[in-house]
């Protein structure tokens, strides 16, 4: 009896260490994951799909797919400005955020319709319009994260190791000097 109890305890603690407690959910297929894995790691960009697009390609695409809402040269229409102060060019810290947002959310009402090459080209065009990359530039999965955004140091990384459940508001701890 004692032995039986002991082995029961042993088995249940092993199960806990493994983390599989209920065995629910099926194994995800690689193809399923790949299709949905669209958030881009700003450190190494490992989720970026293969592809390429130039500023010149992007300019043509912009005229047909974006200009109606965002205006000529990214300004002067009712959708948010894409060039200048308080825009993606001046504010966003990583080129991966630009790529990822255009890929998932633009053009509005036709979200998800752009090919990877088109997203590289549109990103290149908008970064060029913001004076960040030259007109001759071409972006690919290999060089997108080499682009230095002007505001790359504008976001102070969260002091994440300081956050504990039940602590005071992080604001109060980091203070206004942030």
């Amino acid at each position, binding site marked *: 009896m004692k032995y039986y109890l002991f082995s029961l305890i042993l088995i249940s603690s092993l199960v806990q260490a*493994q*983390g*599989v*407690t*209920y*065995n*629910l*959910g*099926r*194994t*995800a297929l690689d193809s*399923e*994951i790949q299709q*949905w*894995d*669209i*958030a*881009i*790691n*700003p*450190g190494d960009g490992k989720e970026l799909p293969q592809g390429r697009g130039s500023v010149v390609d992007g300019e043509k695409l912009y005229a047909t797919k974006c200009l109606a*809402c965002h205006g000529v040269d990214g300004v002067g229409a*009712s*959708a*948010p400005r894409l060039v200048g*102060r*308080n825009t993606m060019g*001046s*504010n*966003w*810290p*990583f080129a*991966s*955020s630009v790529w*990822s*947002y255009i890929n*998932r*959310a633009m053009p*509005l009402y036709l*979200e*998800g319709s752009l090919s990877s090459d088109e997203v590289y080209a549109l990103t290149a065009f908008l970064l060029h319009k913001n004076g960040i990359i030259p007109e001759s530039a071409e972006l690919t999965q290999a060089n997108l994260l080499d682009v230095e955004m002007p*505001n790359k*140091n*504008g*976001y*102070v*990384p*969260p002091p*994440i190791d300081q*956050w504990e*459940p*039940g602590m*005071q*508001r*992080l*604001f*109060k701890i*980091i203070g*206004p000097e*942030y």
Partner: protein
Amino acid sequence: MKNLLDRRRFLTHGTAMMGITLGSIKAAGAQTSNESSNDVLAYGGRSRFVTSQRIADIDETHRAFGRHEGMLTPLQDSMGIITPNSLHFATMQGYYPPDINPDDHKLIIHGMVDRSLVFTMDDLLRLPSVSRIHYLECQANRPEVMEPTVQGSHGKTSCAEWTGVLMSTLLQEAGYDANAKWVIYEGAEPGKMVKSLPMKKALDDVMIAYGQNGEPIRPQNGYPLRVLVPGFEALYSIKWLRRIKVVDRPYMGYQEIRQYTVRPGRQSDERTPFYNYENGPKSVITSPSGEQQLMSGPGYYRITGLAWSGGGAVKKVEVSTDAGKIWRQADIEGPQHKMAHTRFNSIWKWNGEPTHIMARCIDEQNQVQPSRHQFARYWGVDPDKLPTREQRGSGHHNSIQPWGIRENGSVYNSYAII
């Protein structure tokens, strides 16, 4: 099958019976009420004398493109701490709720895990569940000089009982890597909103919810599945959840940059922390509030309102009826759950003279809700510029909302004066 048939027969029978009863009442000359519709009998409606409604959260850009502007909770009519599902606020980043069939919905968990898993809604319903009462509050919810009513200024907060699975349960099922410091998760709406969350929080109390106040979550609030991050700005609580990825760093998606994380009173290009987490301690008097009227002149009135904090439970609420000179402790009406709306009341004898009434929240960590001037001093900004729509980066704002009372008993927003 038999049960279903029986039930159907009962319903038909029941409706026929009801028809007779209602018919006879009508014949007796009673007022026609909306209770005579079969739909209302099957899924209860409210009295035609109750007209409280959400209003649109006006957003010019969203309006220009025919997008969803978001809906504000009528706090001025609220009772107790639970927001009825029909009146829960909804801020949807412009998207109309996707029309998701729960039988087709799936949730993928992958990244730094031993096993990448896909859960169906049925799988999730088989896992251990919890039900907890929590508020949600948009980071942009705040006193606003130009907003005459509490619904307009503070209507981006609501409170519900949420039912679902703990995120920690799912992370354990997948076997998460102990070195992973973050999770990111994403919705199924057209823009696929994504958010990054510290792993410590994910393992602490975050829920993957499918129930809201005893029924499936409403479409605007994330049907069939959403994240619920207690105490954190509502932006963290992604709706229409379809993917969780265990990762080694924050990912900086669209709603994590731009004005969403900018510190109070700053332009979005200025230096700012990556993320803000908890909502500050906050309260607001819901009645009497802006555009209401103290009907019968001098005498006793019940001041009632809501308090909440991302820092835990509300410890106490103080009320001032003389523009902030004297503060008295209010009565707490019901339960004081952690990270939940808490109802306070204070009976007040109005002497008929003009004054300002206001409340402040003190949470279980002794964090005190600041006045407008304290809030501005802390952030080094001009208090007169702080609370306007035009000023970007005025979010994360928890200062005290005063209501002015005129001699004729009319109530107005006196934020700019106090």
